[in-house]
C-alpha cells in the first residue's frame, strides 16, 4: 500500500536526521574507549561557570577537570552528561546515573536521600547586586526581590532571611536565568555561590554588578560528588580524591581555574 511505504520511508528518514542531530553532548576522556575501563555516567547541570558550563557543545569547567582526574585515578572513564539541575537529582534518586557533579553543597537534608563524597571545594553564598545598590548585607535583602536557582543552597540562604515561600523569592531553573532576571530589572539581587557570582561580575564588567558578602548570615559550605544512597562506588572515589589531594593533581587543577592555592587542610578536615 502506498501509505505504508510512505510512512516507513518517513520513519527511516527521520531516524537518520535524529542520529545526525544528536551531537556528542558528553564530555569525557577523548581517547578511544578502552576495553578494560568501565565508563561511569556522571550527570551535571552545565550552566554554572566556572564549575561546569557549555562552551558550544562541549562541557567544560573546574568540576569537569576534577571528575576526570578522580575517575582516571580510580580506574574509570567518566562520561559527563548535561541533563539540567532538577534532572540531576532525579537521576541519582532513580540510580540512573553513577554520580553527579554540579557544585552540589553537602548538607544534612540532602544527606537523607543521597550519599556524598569527601568535600572537594569550599564555597560561600554571596549576593550579586547592581553597582550603587543600597544592599550591603543579608539583612538589607528584607523586602527586596531576590532571584535564585531553584533547589540550591542559595535559595536556602535567602530563605533564612526572607522566610520559606516568600513570594519575593524568584526561583529559576538555573543561575544564568536568575542573573538575567537581575539584568532585566525583575530582581534586586541574586544569591548564589561566590565563585559563580564573582566570575560573572569579573567577566561582564559592562553589567556593572558587584558582589556583597555576609559571612555571618551565609555560612561556608562544601561541595561534594553526589551518589545514590549506599553506593558502592563512593569508597573508590573517595580514595581517588584523597590520592589527587596528596599527589598535587588537585592543586594543579585548582590553580588553573582559580589562580590560587587551595586550602587542602580545610577540605581534608571535613572528612
Amino acid at each position: 500500500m502506498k501509505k505504508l511505504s510512505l510512512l516507513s520511508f518517513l520513519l527511516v528518514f527521520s531516524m537518520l536526521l535524529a542520529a545526525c542531530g544528536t551531537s556528542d553532548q558528553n564530555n569525557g576522556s577523548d581517547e578511544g574507549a578502552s576495553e578494560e575501563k568501565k565508563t561511569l555516567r556522571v550527570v551535571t547541570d552545565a550552566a554554572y561557570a566556572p564549575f561546569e558550563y557549555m562552551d558550544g557543545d562541549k562541557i567544560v569547567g573546574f568540576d569537569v577537570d576534577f571528575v576526570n582526574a578522580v575517575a582516571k585515578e580510580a580506574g574509570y572513564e567518566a562520561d559527563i552528561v548535561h541533563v539540567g539541575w532538577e534532572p540531576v537529582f532525579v537521576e541519582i534518586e532513580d540510580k540512573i546515573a553513577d554520580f553527579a557533579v554540579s557544585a552540589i553543597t553537602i548538607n544534612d537534608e540532602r544527606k537523607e536521600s543521597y550519599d556524598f563524597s569527601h568535600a572537594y571545594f569550599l564555597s560561600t553564598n554571596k549576593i550579586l547586586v547592581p553597582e550603587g545598590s543600597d544592599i550591603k548585607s543579608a539583612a538589607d535583602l528584607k523586602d527586596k526581590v531576590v532571584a535564585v536557582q531553584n533547589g540550591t543552597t542559595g535559595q536556602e540562604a535567602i530563605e533564612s532571611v526572607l522566610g520559606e515561600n516568600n513570594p519575593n523569592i524568584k526561583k529559576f531553573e538555573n543561575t544564568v536565568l536568575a542573573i538575567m532576571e537581575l539584568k532585566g530589572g525583575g530582581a534586586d539581587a541574586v544569591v548564589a555561590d561566590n565563585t559563580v557570582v564573582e566570575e560573572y561580575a569579573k567577566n561582564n564588567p559592562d553589567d556593572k554588578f558587584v558582589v556583597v558578602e555576609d559571612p555571618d548570615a551565609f555560612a561556608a559550605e562544601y561541595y561534594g560528588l553526589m551518589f545514590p544512597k549506599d553506593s558502592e562506588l563512593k569508597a573508590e572515589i573517595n580514595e581517588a580524591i584523597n590520592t589527587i589531594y596528596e599527589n598535587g593533581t588537585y592543586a594543579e587543577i585548582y590553580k588553573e581555574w582559580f589562580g590560587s592555592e587551595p586550602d587542602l587542610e580545610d577540605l581534608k578536615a571535613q572528612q
Partner: protein
Amino acid sequence: MDFRFDLIMDYAPLFLKGTLLTLGLSLAGIAIGTALGLAIGLGKMVKNKWLSLPFDLYITFFRGTPLFVQILLIHFGLVPLFTGKTEPVTAAILALSLNAAAYIAEIFRAGIQSIDKGQMEAARTLGMTHVQAMRHVILPQAFKRMIPPLGNEFIVLIKESSLAAVIAAPEIMYWGRAMQGQYFKVWEPYITVAVIYLVITLSLSFLLNRLERRLSTE
C-alpha cells in the same frame, strides 16, 4: 543595541545540528503518530463500549494533559524503566508520537465520520463486508480529507518539539538556551531560534497548500 551577529555565527553549526534533530523528532512523531493514531481512532469507533474504553482513555489522557508533563513522565519514568538510563531523543520521539497519536486519532475519526453515510450503504448493498467497505471506499476518501489537519498537526509538532529542550534533547531550542547560558544574551539566541522555526513552519505551510491544491483538483 549591539546585536552580536558574530555570536550567532559561532553557534551556527550547533543551530544547524539542532534543526536537523527538530526535523527528525517531528517527522518521527508524525510518522509514528499517524500509524498509531489510525489504530487508536479505529479502536475508539468499535461499537462495544468495553473494547473501545482503553482507546478512549488514551485519547483523554494525552489530550487532557500538557505535552510538557508527558515529556517529563516519559523521560524520567517510562524510558528508564526499559533501558535503565535516560535517553532524551528516544523520550522526545516517544512523547511527541504518543501525543500526536491522540490528536490524529480524532482527526481520523472525524475524517471517517465525515464521509456520507450513503457511501457505506452503497458499498454494503453491493455485498462488501464492513472491512472491505472501509478499505476500498471509506478510508481512501477519508485520507484525502485528513491531509490538511494532518499537515497542521505536523507543523504543531515542529513547534512543540521545542519542549524537548527541557530534557536536554539537543534540538533548536536547546541550543538557543545554551547560547543564552554561555553569553548571557537574550535577543541573539532567541530571535535566531524564532527565525529558524518561522522558516520551517512557513515552508511547510507552503508545501501543504500546494499538496492540498493538487489533491482537490484530482
